[in-house]
């Protein structure tokens, strides 16, 4: 499929890579995301270590793959709405940026609601935080990821509030970009969790 270069790229005018403050904040964000990769790496390793230690209780067979697949689609879609929000703010289109941010918040909340529903179902089937090492590592991993999504929703809500109060001018577009980086990171962590924890276990 041939795509014309000018339909793929556009100039970003507040993307001031020469600005030291911009670079410092973004570098700090990437260092932090790198440390988060360490954190989730350790959690995923722990889960893999205990994936078969179910103490004769429920294990991976109780996973509802169609349901979790729908959740994955929702989180992937939220990455699209997030990047479109970032794109709109870069074009100084505050109104459209807000619409995409609100869309991202709603998708994030839907994902969280799905996770709460999933956890409730698993608890009813006997998989609790203390039922087995499998349960502990599963809830710790997916629960911490859910907590990251919740923090992301909070950050996005603050951006919407700032934008509505006129405190998210083009000079502050960096805040949207940094929040977007965080949100996409949460999404790529889920890509790993969905593949390793759910799909490879069934």
């Amino acid at each position, binding site marked *: 499929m041939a*795509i014309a270069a000018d*339909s*793929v*790229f*556009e*100039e*970003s*005018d507040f*993307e*001031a*890579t*020469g*600005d030291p403050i911009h*670079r410092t904040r*973004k*570098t700090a964000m*990437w*260092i932090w*995301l*790198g*440390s*988060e*990769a*360490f954190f*989730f*790496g*350790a959690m*995923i*390793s*722990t889960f*893999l*270590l205990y994936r078969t230690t179910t103490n004769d209780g429920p294990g991976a067979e109780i996973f509802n*793959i*169609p349901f979790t*697949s729908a959740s*994955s*689609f929702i989180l*992937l*879609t939220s*990455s*699209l709405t*997030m*990047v*479109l929000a970032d*794109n709109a703010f*870069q074009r100084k289109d505050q109104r459209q940026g807000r619409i995409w941010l609100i869309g991202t918040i709603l998708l994030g909340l839907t994902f969280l609601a799905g996770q709460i529903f999933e956890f409730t179902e698993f608890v009813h089937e006997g998989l609790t935080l203390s039922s087995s090492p499998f349960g502990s590592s599963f809830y710790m991993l997916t629960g911490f990821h859910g907590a990251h999504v919740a923090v992301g929703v909070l950050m996005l809500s603050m951006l919407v509030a700032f934008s509505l109060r006129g405190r998210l001018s083009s000079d502050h577009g960096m805040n949207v970009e940094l929040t*977007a*980086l965080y949100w*996409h*990171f949460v*999404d*790529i962590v889920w*890509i*790993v969790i*969905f*593949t*390793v924890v759910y*799909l*490879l276990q*069934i």
Partner: protein
Amino acid sequence: MATTTHAHPTAKFYWLIAAFLAVVTAVEIGISYIEVLGPAQAPLLITFGIVKFITVAAVFMHLRYDLRDYRTLFLFGLLGALVVFAVVLAVFQAF
């Protein structure tokens, strides 16, 4: 202060990437149910997961278009995660 500008993808391109990710996820889910694949199933799922991971990081997180330093920092984190992963599994003799 002089600022430099650089190109970022357009909204249309982001939609195309999202469609690609949706297709890859659908294929992944399909593969997870195909028992005939046997031992090829896990490597295929891992490959598709890596493709999605790299696509989101490169396009949505702009690593493909931003400064190389950011890429290096993130790769360092990922490498660290892989080392943690290998050490934990080796210590508990999970291999």
